[in-house]
């Protein structure tokens, strides 16, 4: 279970958001919406252990995330969380397959990873040896999703996964995220200001940030 208590974040003394409380049960979904600049991406960074909140506490199954040493936070993120970043954060000089392999090497798992199956599920099986720099936006988005789920995470965070895509590709990505979450039995936290997403995925909870 993911519990956030009284999360707030200040930038240069200005409050970006405050008193955010969340409670996400296993295999449940949460949609966080809100207009641009309200702090959605910052909240995602906080939830993933990338950005420490100004105040508040985040616990994953009784583990106080920001009470862990910094190295352990990185390791915890690698082993338990899958993140699809808004700008993908893929390594452009690596091939499609290498991007998955490097993600697996961070997890330090001993089980063999069926890269072909994963890439097949996201429709990139025939592009495994192509460098990321040569992929289209939709393909990069699919690879980012595949990478987020490669280690069978318990919690998955997606930041604006459909906002730069057309309806057809947005539909493909939304279905992919939903299917992969179900396959991994992961809780899904999706952050977007894209109103199409609610028609594509049914969420157990919705949190609205800022005035909309």
């Amino acid at each position, binding site marked *: 279970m993911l519990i956030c208590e009284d999360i707030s974040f200040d930038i240069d003394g200005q409050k970006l958001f405050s008193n955010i409380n969340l409670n996400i049960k296993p295999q449940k979904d949460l949609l966080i919406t809100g207009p641009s600049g309200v702090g959605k991406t910052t909240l995602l*960074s906080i939830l993933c252990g990338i950005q420490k909140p100004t105040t508040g506490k985040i616990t994953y199954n009784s583990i106080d995330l920001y009470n862990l040493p910094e190295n352990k936070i990185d*390791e915890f*993120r690698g*082993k338990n969380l899958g993140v699809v970043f808004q700008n993908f954060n893929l*390594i452009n*000089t690596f091939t499609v397959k290498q991007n998955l392999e490097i993600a697996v090497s*961070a*997890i330090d798992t001993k089980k063999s990873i069926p890269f072909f199956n994963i890439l097949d599920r996201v429709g990139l099986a025939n592009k495994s040896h192509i460098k990321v720099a040569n992929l289209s936006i939709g393909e990069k988005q699919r690879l980012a999703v595949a990478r987020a789920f490669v280690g069978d995470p318990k919690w998955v965070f997606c930041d604006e996964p459909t906002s730069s895509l057309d309806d057809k590709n947005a539909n493909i990505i939304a279905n992919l995220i939903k299917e992969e979450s179900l396959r991994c039995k992961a809780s899904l936290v999706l952050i977007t200001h894209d109103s199409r997403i609610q028609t594509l995925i049914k969420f157990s909870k919705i949190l609205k940030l800022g005035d909309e």
Partner: protein
Amino acid sequence: MIVGITIITVSILVNQVTKETFSKNNPGLDAVVGAKGSPLQLILSSIHHIDIPTGNISYKNARKIIKHPAIKSAIPISLGDNFQNFRIVGTNKSFLKLYKANLISGTAWSQPMQAVIGYNVSKITKLKINKFFVGSHGLIDTGDVHGEQPYKVVGVLKKTGTILDNLILTSLDSVWNLHSVTNKDKLEITSLLLKYKNKTSSFSFPRLINKGTNMQAASPSFEISKLLKLTGNAHRIVDYLSVLIMILSFLGILFTLLNNINERKYDLAVLRTLGFSRWKLFSIILSEGMIISILGSTIGLIFGYIVYESMYYFSIVGRSLELGQLSFLNDLFLIWIIVNIIAFITCLVPCIKVYKQNIRSTLLNS
């Protein structure tokens, strides 16, 4: 880095091996008496068998020196011929005792035209006991041979690690017979190798010889230390140069790594988001730097050793200075350790930069 380590390795090996060789070749001799000329040339030709002799001296006059009360021992040597560039030295059996030489096989010479050969001579010329060989006139092989009077090998010496390994020893009579010197008053030798009874003679005796006769007395330790001082300056310049190259190599590693992580800072931040800890990235960057350093320094040492071995090989073939065997592995290992410790410290700079990287701001700025 490879170039720096290669130069420094060769410099150290040659410097130390040269010192060791000069020291080994002199079995405690206090002076060498020979014809007037350069005292260093006399020492190099009579003890180290590098240079040509300054000339000959009368054996009659030399005998007077042998009998001088200040002299504990005096060994005459006569140079002039060679076999395949190995010098043939006419002397007496005390020469063998002087170098504490032992025979692998055979005996010492007992009559003229018998020879005892050094270890390297036997190895390279394939001469064995009871084999005959013909000496050539001069100290290098010119082809002008004394074909009418061949030498017979009667003994082969054990390896000594000194110049003795590269010499062919025979009696003085052999050399005189070969050069048809029959008049006892006209007998000549190249030089006398002396040991004093008392070290205080090292001041008075040379003066006596240098001023009172047409000969000169030279001190091996004094002349060789003068030579080493001269070559030492050259070595120091080479050492400074190699240290400069090393510093440039360290800076090269530093800037390469800094540039590398600057170009890859986005990728490194991505790796952090995937679960690579700060320490893991720190160790990856450190490993990259240390692989460059360890490979560079090891290849440099190997190159240096190859250059040294080549010089050693040519020193045998050319019968010049016997460089001796490699016995400075500890020094080289120490240099290797020091170089890699400095490289390790240098690598910490980019590693700390990676360790302190703020992933969120890096990703946002990218």
